[in-house]
């Protein structure tokens, strides 16, 4: 019986999504074509299709950025408890950063940071 709330939650979630779609279909004017089917490029006049091949360099830069982003995210909670963890905590964080630095050195040596 305690699971009735789970069921209610499922029903409510479905109603929120489905209801929104249904209601917008009910009241929104349906008038496709023209400028509406043009890809949105921040107000610029679009050049060509959206399905083009990107330079793989974007992904590599994105990956490297993500690594240090996650590192910084982990360092915030670590900084909060730094007083209680003390030296062992510092060493653990240094090992963690070292592993990431190895990754950066590897990418650097392999020429990922050169934009071609």
């Amino acid at each position: 019986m305690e699971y009735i709330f789970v069921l209610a939650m499922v029903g409510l979630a479905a109603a929120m999504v489905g209801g929104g779609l249904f209601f917008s279909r009910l009241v929104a004017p349906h008038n496709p074509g023209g400028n509406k089917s043009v890809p949105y490029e921040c107000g610029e006049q679009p050049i060509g299709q959206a399905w083009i091949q990107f330079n793989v360099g974007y992904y590599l830069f994105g990956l490297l950025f993500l690594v240090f982003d996650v590192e910084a995210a982990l360092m915030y909670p670590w900084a909060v408890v730094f007083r209680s963890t003390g030296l062992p905590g510092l060493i653990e964080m240094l090992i963690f950063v070292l592993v990431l630095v190895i990754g950066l050195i590897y990418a650097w040596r392999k020429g990922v940071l050169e934009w071609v």
Partner: protein
Amino acid sequence: MSIIIPEIIVLATAFAILIADLFMNERTRVYLAPAAVAGLLLALAVMVVHTPASGALIGGRFTMDAAGWWFKILFMISALIAVLLSMDTLDGRARVRVRGMGFRGEYYSILLFSVVGMMFLVSARDLATLFVSLELATLPLFVLAAWRRDDPKSGEAGLKYVVLGALASAFIVYGFGILYGLTQSTDLETIAQRLAGERAPAFWLAAALVLAGAGFKLTIVPFHMWAADVYQGAPTPVTAYLSVGSKAAGLAFAFQVFYRIFGDALPHWDMLIAIFAALTMTLGNLVAIVQHDIKRFMAFSAISQAGYFLLGFLGAAEEGVPAMLFYLLVYIFSNLAVFACIIWFENETGKGQIEDYRGLSLSNPLMALGMTLALFSLAGIPPLSGFVGKFFLFSIASKAGFHGLVAVAAVNSTISLYYYLRVVRQMYIEPVDERVPAPGSSVSIGLSLALLSVPVAILGILPTVYEGIHAATIAWLASMPQG
């Protein structure tokens, strides 16, 4: 502290290889594979010296016990043989060059990362570490499956594996989330205590989700769909490692969740496990009959072997656990021996159809003999080790009262003999194909086949290994909270 040293050695080797690769040229990179072998041998030596190691670190989150010792030894042996089997292909010693094999340093370090993940998986005693180490074990496998970057089949294998693997991981982590919600704890022992007698619908949902995830790793029908395409598309040395490493990790994960979390409910699931076992054996076997590609054939053979493993979950843990561990040992040696021959044959001739093995007994009798021995062991012919392993598993199912299932397993075993003999027939009875040049020899693959053939032949005759595993698992079960 000493219990974590093997993991640290393997991890340090992986990083050392990654960094060393940066400062080496094409000529000196051939030393990377010996470095990986040396690291694994050192870790194995430390494991053996610290027998039987037991203890706990980091507040009980990393523990070591006798069954874990066996698992870790098996993981490291699989990786060691996988490195030996990869050397020729990666160093360009193969007569038929495999193109697009990429950077060697990355290959070996990714392989070692996967091994470290498997080793941590066995020692994990916490939902979070269990999940993270399972991911560390499988993510490198996705990368390795897609290793040949200019081969569309390898890319397809990697994509299928990563998509379906991510789905399985999602199942597992969702199940873990519900378990945490039910018990407010991530510690496996505490979860098991608080779950005792729990039969709420959420418990069943969690159990089903975790079971599906474990089934994916073990290639249990109906979660086996990925195996054939991934095995076929991945580079052959990677397939060899995948077929044993992924299965061993899946069994280790199944042990962790079945015996540590659901130990109290496991006896009530025997009917379900029996159905899964029968389906897995039968489907794997029937589809294997019609295969022509040897890697795809081995994929379905591996699926049917997973069905035999499941029989061990039916009986009492004191009998099931040693039988499964022993069969895992036998399976790893036999399967790697078959793959040693497949990799060597592909390196020498560039061919991988079963029909291409025609007349191998004449052109290279030793390789043909090694492959025959391993195939017979997989089929379960006495006195080879595969027979003894299957015998233990079948007798457990029989003792548990599943006589029908044992009959199904026995029939399947006979069917499997037919298709394993298909390969043997090509090698021994069919005449040599004159157009195929006679294959040469390879030091590393020949050495690994010799190393593997000995245990395949004698493990079933020597009782000491099984007794060792049995004693280890009794100690392991005694250490468990609820027995």
